[in-house]
């Protein structure tokens, strides 16, 4: 006598005795396909395969619940089509898939990977994996890189950059901080902290501790590289910005300014001598402010757009004659004159007011059209003969004593007046162009001096070059002095050039061949030869063309004015993808390198 367990309706029933089992078989409650297990054993068997029960069971009349109305094929054929023998239970032939135990007969299906094992691996592995990733991130140190090393594959890289802040801008409205950092390797990189300004200020505590222009900072963030805007960095976490060295600004007197101080940031204590408004060629307003201290004077220009953004108290401070203040400025230069640019208009410290004498104010106003002047600059100017001026003289100021061989009034392409002087000494000649702004700022007596051919004058000239020829501009209208008369008959005719002048033209053809990526801010002002650069981008406007050139080392922009376009064959119709070679002058605008056409005859477009 044995007892049996039966697996009916998804549950184990029993134990039933032999008789009971037979009754259930006869009544049809147990069919051939059902699973039975003898008490005392652990093995489920198919009822139809048990010899003790053989012949006593009725065939099943029920359909398998797994069949669906949509299947028109017999179940066996269907199963044959979709599964192979390895997917069937070896005992009852039921489809088991990846299950370890047959759901119908309970038979152990061997040589399978248990699904439960895989599930456990996935859960446990997930937690271990997340912990591993967290640990890896926790101990990861960002890579210290130089901006010059960045390439296109580093988009999204987590890096640290150490460099000097060259520009700094807070936007309280957008809660954003933007600055540019120069690590000395190439172009500066922009660092943007969107919606983080308040947190950064809280972190640094006070304005004095905040990063400022000139400070050495260490920034860690994620690089963002785009073809259009170049490389920048997102600063997501304020704690990743550190000031490693605060910039110690030196205080300087205006009279002590030298050419080496250009682009430096210094602390200036000065008072406002005069304020005047002027309209630019584009029709916008600008404010010319002359500042002075006991040693000299310096000009400052604020354009309308920037002026309108200033708080009212700052506007009042900067437009009140006699106001003495102290602030950080960057020394610049314009047409041979030093210029001051206030770095942060919110950090101007008013010291008081001083009295400005009428003579001082009048003298400053008279020269306001020339964007300010500096006595100190004129005092430091070297003298030179015209024949000694060459390529290396460009962008420098020299005191020249020469006779006025020719004076002429002309019109520019835009219809404005301009004046040209031809100055001649025993070594050579030079053309000097005076624009109407400078001309109008001259006193009547000075005008008379320069309009009289045959006068010998001493003047400070800013040397420049135009179309490969050296020319001069008046650096300081106050420096024009009549020193005598000049014998017109002995003067050389206009077209003859001094030997050194000619050599200057040839010298540009010896310009070194360089790749775009090799150019740095140190090359500013120099000539370079670029060969086979591809034109990546072309846009035109009424003033000229903007091109982006590229080679395998990098890209650079070039601005070509309208009058230059006509001189270069094929340039007006040039398209993206064309190749350009020639001699260019390296320039920079807002710390970003760009090129100018040095020698239009050298430009070849293919």
């Amino acid at each position, binding site marked *: 006598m044995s007892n049996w367990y039966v697996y009916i309706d998804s549950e184990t029933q029993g134990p039933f005795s032999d008789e009971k089992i037979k009754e259930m078989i006869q009544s049809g409650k147990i069919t051939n396909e059902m699973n039975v297990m003898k008490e005392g054993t652990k093995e489920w068997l198919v009822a139809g395969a048990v010899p003790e029960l053989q012949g006593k069971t009725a065939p099943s009349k029920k359909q398998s619940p797994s069949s669906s*109305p*949509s299947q028109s094929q017999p179940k066996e054929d269907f199963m044959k*089509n*979709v*599964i*192979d023998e*390895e*997917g069937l239970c070896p005992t009852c032939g039921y489809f088991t*898939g*990846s299950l370890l135990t047959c759901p119908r007969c309970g038979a152990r299906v061997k040589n399978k*990977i248990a*699904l439960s094992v*895989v*599930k456990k*691996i*996935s*859960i*446990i*592995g*997930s937690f*271990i*994996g*997340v912990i*591993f*990733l*967290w640990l*890896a*991130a*926790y101990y*990861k140190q960002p*890579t210290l*890189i130089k901006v010059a090393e960045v*390439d*296109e*594959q*580093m*988009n*999204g*890289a*987590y*890096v640290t950059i150490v460099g000097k802040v060259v520009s700094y801008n807070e936007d309280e409205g957008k809660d954003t901080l933007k600055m540019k950092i120069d690590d000395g390797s190439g172009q500066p990189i922009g660092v943007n902290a969107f*919606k*983080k300004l308040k*947190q950064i200020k809280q972190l640094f505590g006070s304005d004095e501790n905040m990063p400022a222009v000139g400070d050495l900072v260490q920034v860690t963030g*994620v*690089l963002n*590289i*785009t*073809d*259009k805007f170049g490389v920048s960095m997102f600063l*997501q*976490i*304020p*704690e*990743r910005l550190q000031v490693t060295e605060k910039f110690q600004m030196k205080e300087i007197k205006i009279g002590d300014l030298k050419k080496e101080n250009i682009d430096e940031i210094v602390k200036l204590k000065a008072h406002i001598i005069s304020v005047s408004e002027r309209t630019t060629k584009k029709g916008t307003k600008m404010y010319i402010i002359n500042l002075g201290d006991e040693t000299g004077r310096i000009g400052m220009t604020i354009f309308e757009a920037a002026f309108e953004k200033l708080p009212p108290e700052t506007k009042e401070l900067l437009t009140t004659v006699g106001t003495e203040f102290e602030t950080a400025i960057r020394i610049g230069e314009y047409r041979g004159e030093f210029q001051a640019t206030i770095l942060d208009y919110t950090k101007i410290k008013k010291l008081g007011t001083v009295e400005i004498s009428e003579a001082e104010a009048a003298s400053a106003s008279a020269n306001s059209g020339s964007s300010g002047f500096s006595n100190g600059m004129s005092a430091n100017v070297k003298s030179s003969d015209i024949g000694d001026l060459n390529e290396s003289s460009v962008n420098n100021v020299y005191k020249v004593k020469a006779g006025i061989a020719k004076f002429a009034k002309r019109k520019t392409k835009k219809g404005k007046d301009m004046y040209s002087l031809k100055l001649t000494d025993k070594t050579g000649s030079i053309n000097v162009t005076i624009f109407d702004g400078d001309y109008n700022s001259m006193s009547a007596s000075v005008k008379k001096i320069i309009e009289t051919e045959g006068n010998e004058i001493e003047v400070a000239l800013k040397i420049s070059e135009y179309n490969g020829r050296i020319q001069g501009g008046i650096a300081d209208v106050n420096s024009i002095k009549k020193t005598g008369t000049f014998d017109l008959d002995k003067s050389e005719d206009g077209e003859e050039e001094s030997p050194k002048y000619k050599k200057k033209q040839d010298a540009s053809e010896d310009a070194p061949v360089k790749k775009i990526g090799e150019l740095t801010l140190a090359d500013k002002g120099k000539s370079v030869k670029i060969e086979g650069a*591809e034109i*990546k981008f072309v846009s035109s406007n009424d003033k000229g063309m903007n091109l982006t050139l590229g080679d*395998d080392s990098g890209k650079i922009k070039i601005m070509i004015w309208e009058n230059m376009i006509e001189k270069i064959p094929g340039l007006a119709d040039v398209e*993206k*993808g064309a190749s350009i070679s020639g001699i260019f002058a390296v320039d920079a605008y807002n710390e970003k390198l760009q090129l100018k056409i040095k020698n239009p005859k050298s430009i070849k477009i293919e």
Partner: protein
Amino acid sequence: MEGILVIAFSLLGTIAGGLLCLIPSLHIYNVAGIAIILWIELSNKIPYYTIGPFFMALMVSFAFINTIPMTFFSAADESAGASILPTTDMLKSGKGRDASVISGLGTFFGAVILVLLTPFVFYLAPYIYLPVRAHLHWIIGLILVFYVMSEWPKGAGRGKTPWAKFKNSWHNCFAGLLTFVLSSIIGLIITTKPLAPPEKSFQNIMPIFLGFFAFPSIIQAMMSEAKYPENQYNSKYLNCKWSDFGYGALPGTIGGLITAFIPAVTVGISAIFAGHITNHRNLRQASFEKPKNPNTAVHVHIPEIYYQQERVFLVAGGINKIIYYVGAFLFLFAITDLTPNGMGRGGMNILLKPIFSPERGDFAVMLATVFFTSSLSLLLLIYFTDWTIKIMPKINVRLVYGIVTVVLLVLLYVMGGGWMALGVAAATTCVGLIPVFFSCRRSHCMAVLLVPIALNMAGYGDAIARLLGLM
């Protein structure tokens, strides 16, 4: 000459994309990454203006040809579940060819919609894009909430004890939540402190996606005991009606536009949205008949409705796919005064932006490339489908998967950043296995991008970084 080169590179992109997309589990973004590296090396020899058409052709051919591995190799990426699900059932019934080609036709229909409608969207989109941009963080948050809450218990409540019944019913929902949470944590870790070395950072997302989607699919497929049934490839007809395209157009277009517009939302998520918006899932209701006798209800199950739902699903999925993959990339070229830098979305934009910036006139060239490449890709799809059906019974699928696994691991090591990439892929594979074996949605893994993006947009990214101690 320029025109000829554009056509030539479009052709090259179509063929390259078509052939490489046949490899199961290899995503187009991995292929694009390799192409970008090659382009950087050859940038002196390849004209700059061919980049756009080449990568556009790559994307278009992927949108078509990836139907084949998803149908026949079950190599599903996250999009597959909501764009091509009926193909498995159709494959078993011997209708694999129908499944693949109907989906391809839907994709072609989507390409036509894209080409015809995009110029109009060009004028509308900036006005939608600009105001929406500032609010994307909570839009993404809402999408996440809807997505998590719309998963329903799939278990039948089997078990002897109440706990067993509860577990059986809800295990998939909790598994989905677990996947979501773990993926979010991984995403927050990776975005706060990317683990890839700097020189491989442009592919820093590759180990994560291969781990979440590719490797679990491969493991699942290799564990499967199923053999592929015979499918026919000789028929000159498709079991399809033109009305199926009409039904499928709206949900497909809506889903595709949602995905193309909102960052980090993919086809799977948007398809569910679109399905609910357009109610196209409830075609079955049409099967109810009026009762013949009063006070009785008759539910007549009409098989044709069921099959029509399958076809509509495939058509909508096909449209959704191309509008997402190609439309998101196409928006990059929609340069307007309001959007001077375009409105591009999607992985291809992120991959290409260091080396390519479009200009105003490029949009027309891209539209032409989309249409040209779509036509070619549809032909390729039909040919490749027939070829796949012919060779499927003869090849050892497990061997194919094994080779693909080795290829992906090598790719991961070389392009993803060495051992760290393999470690990240291992961790994410474990997380990716949860949806596979606990029957929840794989799209929960997209929390790896959605959650960090939403939190960063809302300004809480740094707070989370502090919480995780990853300063």
